[in-house]
């Protein structure tokens, strides 16, 4: 019996050893090294970085561009989940419950829409970014500006006007994210017992009260999961900004985000030490967000 237990432990260890070692070597150890590099003046090419203590961190607090990036991340953290979830919930409701009179099914053609909504999710982020560069082109070849100019309106600098560029980035991110959450919420809706909807309908509930009184409360868990996922997406956004916007986070740093500033400091200014310090800051922001969202989402589950 004892031997059996020992064998069992060995078996589990054998299975865990590989992934845990991989995780330690390729994830945890670089994190720890980043903390060390953040306290050096390493410029990326020398073999002997000089230790400078917290100099990089004190410099960081007066770095206006980095804090601008933090503000953009914060704005995304609020707006991206909000917009995506509202739109995705609306679509998921229409596709699954909100259609027709009487019967509890999606609006006609909902199967086709479900596939179409999922398209953006299939595209790689870099592809989406390059695609939208063309969509947003400021001349007659732009997909949005072409028709506008044909109507005699002055073209809009979606990516070249510093007041608009951030909203363009947000728009693209929402566009890409919505499809996945429509599917996620659809799955959530499928797990809500049908009789709940039927009971509500018999009691005379319209589409509005079906949504707010039944769907939303019963989907609340899924919505919270979506919120955390989208929050992480908002904090580590990089590729869309770097590839799509002018001057990588411009014009005039109007779309830059933390990850873009880390990349810029490391690979165009060759300040790897300082970039690591920014990375350490981003690490704390992300951990902070994770803790807050875990605290807030502690809530009793509804059991059917």
């Amino acid at each position, binding site marked *: 019996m004892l031997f*059996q237990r020992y*064998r*069992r432990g*060995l*078996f589990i260890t*054998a*299975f865990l*050893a*590989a992934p845990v*070692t*991989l995780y*330690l*070597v*390729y994830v945890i*150890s*670089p994190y720890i*090294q*980043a903390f*060390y*590099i953040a306290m050096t*003046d*390493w*410029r*990326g*090419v*020398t*073999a*002997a*970085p000089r230790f*400078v203590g917290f*100099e990089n961190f004190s*410099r960081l607090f007066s770095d206006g561009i980095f804090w601008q990036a933090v503000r953009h991340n914060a704005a995304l953290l609020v707006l991206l989940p909000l917009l995506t979830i509202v739109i995705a919930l609306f679509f998921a409701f229409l596709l699954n419950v909100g259609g027709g009179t009487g019967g509890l099914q999606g609006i006609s053609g909902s199967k086709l829409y479900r596939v179409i909504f999922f398209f953006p999710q299939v595209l790689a982020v870099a592809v989406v970014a390059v695609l939208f560069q063309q969509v*947003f*082109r*400021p*001349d007659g070849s732009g997909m949005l*500006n072409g028709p506008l100019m044909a109507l005699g309106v002055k*073209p809009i*600098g*979606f*990516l*070249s*006007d*510093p007041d608009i560029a951030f909203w363009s980035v947000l728009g693209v991110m929402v566009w890409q994210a919505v499809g996945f959450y429509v599917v996620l919420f659809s799955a959530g809706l499928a797990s809500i017992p049908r009789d709940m909807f039927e009971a509500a309908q018999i009691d005379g509930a319209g589409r509005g009260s079906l949504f707010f009184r039944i769907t939303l409360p019963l989907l609340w868990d899924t919505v919270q999961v979506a919120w955390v996922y989208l929050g992480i997406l908002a904090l580590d956004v990089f590729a869309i900004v770097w590839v799509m916007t*002018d*001057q990588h986070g*411009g*014009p*005039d*740093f109007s779309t830059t985000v933390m990850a873009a500033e880390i990349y*810029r400091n490391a*690979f*165009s*200014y*060759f*300040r790897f030490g*300082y970039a690591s310090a920014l990375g350490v800051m981003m690490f704390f922001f992300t951990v902070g967000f994770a803790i807050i969202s875990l605290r807030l989402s502690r809530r009793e589950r509804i059991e059917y």
Partner: protein
Amino acid sequence: MTDTPQNITRRQLLRGAALVPVAGALAACATPASKAPASSSAAPVATSAANPFGVAADKPLEVWIFDGGFGTAYAKDIHQPLFKTKYPQAQIKIESTKEITKVLQPRFAGGNPPDVIDNSGANAMDFGALAQDGQLHDLTPLLDAPSWDDPNVKVRDLLDPAVIEIGTYDGTFSVLGYVNYIFGIWYSQKAFRDNGWQPPKTWDEFLKLCETIKKSGKMAPFTYAGKFPQYLYEPLLTLAAKIGGPEVLVNIDNLEDGAWTSEPMKQSAAAWAEIGAKYLMEGTAGLDHVQTQTAQNKYKVAMLPAGSWLENEQKTTTPADFEYGMFPLPDFTGSDKMPYGTLHTSPGENFIVPAKGANPQGGMEYLRAMLSKKAAGDFSELVRTVSVVKGAGEGRQLSPGAASASKAVTAAGANTVTYRWQTWYAQLKDEAIAATGELMTGGLTPDKYLERLQKKADEIKGDSSIKKFKR
């Protein structure tokens, strides 16, 4: 029934799998570790007049070329064969990339950089960082070596003095610019001839020309690579130097107090802001260099600022009878410090020999071959540009744009200006790019624009972590 596997080979497999990441642990190390310095700096072979660096005839050579406006054919078809004629046993590996930093920075950190690098393009490695870390081989022996063609002429005497000035970091000549970039305003000689337009000599004429072109309705007067406003701060700075003399730019380079907000800079910024407000092609701010240059090839816009690489870069979209031409910045007032014809020239396509490479002698020898009359002349013809080697373009068939630029250089004589802050201080460059875009789209007034750049320059001056340079 037991809940453990009985199969011995499966357990061996698991044990083996557990060992794999341990083996990979070394590879995952992000922190650099000092290694014993490579002993490659000593010449492997005795030096002689024919072999001034002591190149080992059979030692392999690794060359990395930036795959940009000039392509890579010049290295493979001109330089490599020439080097081979002298060292037939040497294995030469010519590699190319558009992403110099991504590909080569890890090799510097790992202590095994290649032997020659064309460190150019938007993703070039920072020369300041390389110099600060002693990664650049001293190229002074190259300057003092006899030239490839004539043992009585030193390499130093073939080069424009600006090449040596610009390639010097911390008092050591370590970067060889190969191409002489000539900056100016580019136009189609055909379009100007057909419409009876004249390249302007004064700023008033320039404004009148813009007005005429605008009224003609045939094309927009002016554009620049709106996504990359560094294309516009170039003529802005050159105009300021023309108004106030080369010291305007020297002061900016040296991060002097108030260098950006000097009077000539104010005049120039205001002049260009007016162009931005009145004469830009629609949508300029959102277009890149290829899109605006192609618009010019389609006769949608008359003029744009660029450098002498333009003609080669646009060779696939330029109509056969387009006839590129270039004119220098017009006189701003009657009392400009520098005469008409003053040009901004700057050596570009920066070649370096890494100090810790395996074969730095071979690297320098490769550069010496590149600076031969034949290599430089063939290069000029192939990529339609002007090299830094004096007289290499003589008797060659130059394309209209290259001919026009060469003529402008000859006419300018000693009246050339240059600036270096953008390679020394990358942060200042990014700020200038962002602010210049704002200036041209009306988001910043000329005064606010210059104040903002002055503030950034002061910030850099006060930052002890950024290495400072002087000229």
